[in-house]
């Protein structure tokens, strides 16, 4: 009875339809429609008009040239490969750095937990660009940080290998480093959420049954945190693979990532159909792991 009273207004007069429907309207208007426009553009033909593409008329109705080039032109394939390798490296490093941090957050005294959790999120309060510029400052040839590393390197290695500075800027290393720094919270937070739910009595039970602490970690903690690892991995991998700003600012322009290629096709080459084709290909590349994840979730869903 009381439930009917509480939810009565919600069920009445289609309120529930509106509230549930609004996000769908939002998604259709601001995601699905633009995406369909991009898909349509990807099969258009580049023209010297404004906007710089057309269908039909003097041109073919459907032009598959963009997709053909995506899969035949080495530039695009290399860009895809660079993106996937950089994003995968960033994801793995985020996991390696983030897992102990997430585990620490869970195991630390509750009084400390919120403070440390806030410190993880704190960088978001500063402008993203400012933080990338800070890294550029650190990695630059004349920075104190680079000098320190150079001095250390020259001290450790034989004289023949001595360098004037460590080449960090405009390398894939710099891209991965800054991406790890930027996306680390996206790895830590889902990991923290999944580790925090785990029952620590299970750890005690495993200890009691003859497992040493490191065995308990691999037998009990790690397998149970797989959903968190997958969620965090995707939250890092997907934006990292399409990242534009970081590779543009600190990356090597000779081996661009796919985001940079899309941007250049749109803005420099003004080849919108080509840019759209690359964007659609990137989306497909990202959708496959997402679908695999959903499949995995649905399969293990019954276990919780």
């Amino acid at each position, binding site marked *: 009875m009381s439930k009917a009273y509480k939810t009565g207004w919600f069920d009445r007069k289609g309120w529930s339809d509106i509230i549930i429907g609004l996000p769908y309207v939002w998604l259709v208007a601001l995601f699905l429609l633009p995406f369909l426009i991009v898909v349509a553009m990807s099969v258009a033909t580049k023209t010297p008009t404004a906007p710089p593409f057309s269908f039909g008329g003097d041109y073919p109705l459907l032009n598959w040239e963009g997709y053909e080039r995506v899969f035949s032109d080495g530039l695009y394939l290399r860009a895809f490969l660079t993106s996937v390798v950089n994003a995968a490296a960033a994801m793995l490093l985020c996991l390696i750095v983030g897992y102990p941090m997430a585990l620490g957050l869970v195991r630390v005294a509750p009084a400390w937990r919120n403070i440390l959790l806030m410190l993880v999120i704190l960088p978001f309060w500063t402008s993203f660009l400012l933080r990338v510029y800070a890294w550029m400052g650190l990695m630059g040839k004349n920075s104190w940080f680079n000098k320190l590393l150079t001095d250390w390197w020259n001290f450790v290695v034989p004289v023949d290998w001595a360098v004037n500075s460590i080449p960090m800027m405009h390398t894939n290393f710099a891209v991965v480093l800054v991406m790890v720094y930027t996306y680390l919270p996206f790895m830590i937070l889902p990991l923290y959420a999944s580790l925090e739910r785990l*029952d620590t*009595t*299970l750890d*005690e*039970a*495993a*200890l*009691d*049954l*003859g*497992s*040493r602490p490191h*065995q308990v970690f691999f*037998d*009990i903690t790690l*397998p*149970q945190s797989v959903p968190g690892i997958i969620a965090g991995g995707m939250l890092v991998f997907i934006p990292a693979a399409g990242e534009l700003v970081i590779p543009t600012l600190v990356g090597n322009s000779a081996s661009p990532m796919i985001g940079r290629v899309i941007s250049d096709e749109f803005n420099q080459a003004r080849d919108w159909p080509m840019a759209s084709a690359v964007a659609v290909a990137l989306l497909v590349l990202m959708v496959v792991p997402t679908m695999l994840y959903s499949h995995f979730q649905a399969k293990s869903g*019954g*276990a*919780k």
Partner: protein
Amino acid sequence: MPAAQAEPFLRIEGVSKKFGSFTAVSDVSLTVEKGEIFALLGGSGCGKTTLLRMLAGFEDLSAGRIFLDGKDMAGVPPWLRPVHMMFQSYALFPHMTVETNIAYGLKHEPISKAAKQDRVREMLDLVQLTQFAARKPHQISGGQRQRVALARALARQPKLLLLDEPLAALDKKLREHTQFELMSIQQRTGVTFMVVTHDQEEAMTLADRIAVMDKGQVKQVGTPTDIYEFPNSRFVAGFIGSITSFEASVKGRDGDHLVLDVPALGAVQARDVPGLVEGQAVTLALRPEKLRITKNRPDATNVVEGQVKDLAYFGKDSLYRITLPSGELVQAHAVNANRGEDAARADWDDRVFLSFDPASAIVLAE
């Protein structure tokens, strides 16, 4: 008795545990024999679980020593102790099947794969879960989960099995059945059981001996009969079963009986308790089932008159609450041995006589 000279199987010697300024366990000494079911009984916060965790190796001792089978357990980590625990929540691994849960303890054992499989099969058989071996813990019932937890803890053949509130998570009907099952498994395996419980009935039925704990201290150790019939303190008498207690003082001795002056009842004869002196203030405790209710004055040593204030009819028996002339209330149990209307049975507001044997009266100095 040469047996008494031998080193007991488990010896807890002056064990204390402090958390900051709070003393959870205070100077506890106990011995447990091999193959015994020993219960630690007490309310929440009495230190029984802390003591259990110290035996498992999860908590360090602030003072004292624990010897298991003659070996000092100090500094032995949980994974090297021949002690296993059945957790109150069972703590089954949710990502493993029933079978892999049970096999988990054997994972790091230096025995052959075939021997491990045999042991797991034997355990599945012992707890009658062979057909559920491939299920995950969330796919079986609460009672089955409890049996998996038991099998998992027994698979490594511990010297001592610790059971933390083993029946608390089961419903009442299942609990009675499981109680007997636990006892039969204990007899078949011969493993020494240490059970922690807050449920006196559970402790009484399961255990060979019980230690009643309060505020970190052991109040009394004994068989269920000892604890129930011969409690040594007001706390134990009140904790186990129900009692009605009266202020009293020792008046003197009459033959082998103690004569008490009880303001609410008059002069009462009770079984003599050595060491009591004349004039000493004591407590007289009466258990409801030891009191007889009659409508006519019976020929008994201790008789007191009263009036039925309340009565609860349970079928097989009735619980009476009787007002004494002094205004105090006494609880008395009467078995309804005769069927139907019974003229001799006391009813609401009836004048009745309560009587009890001197041997039934519990005299407590503490």
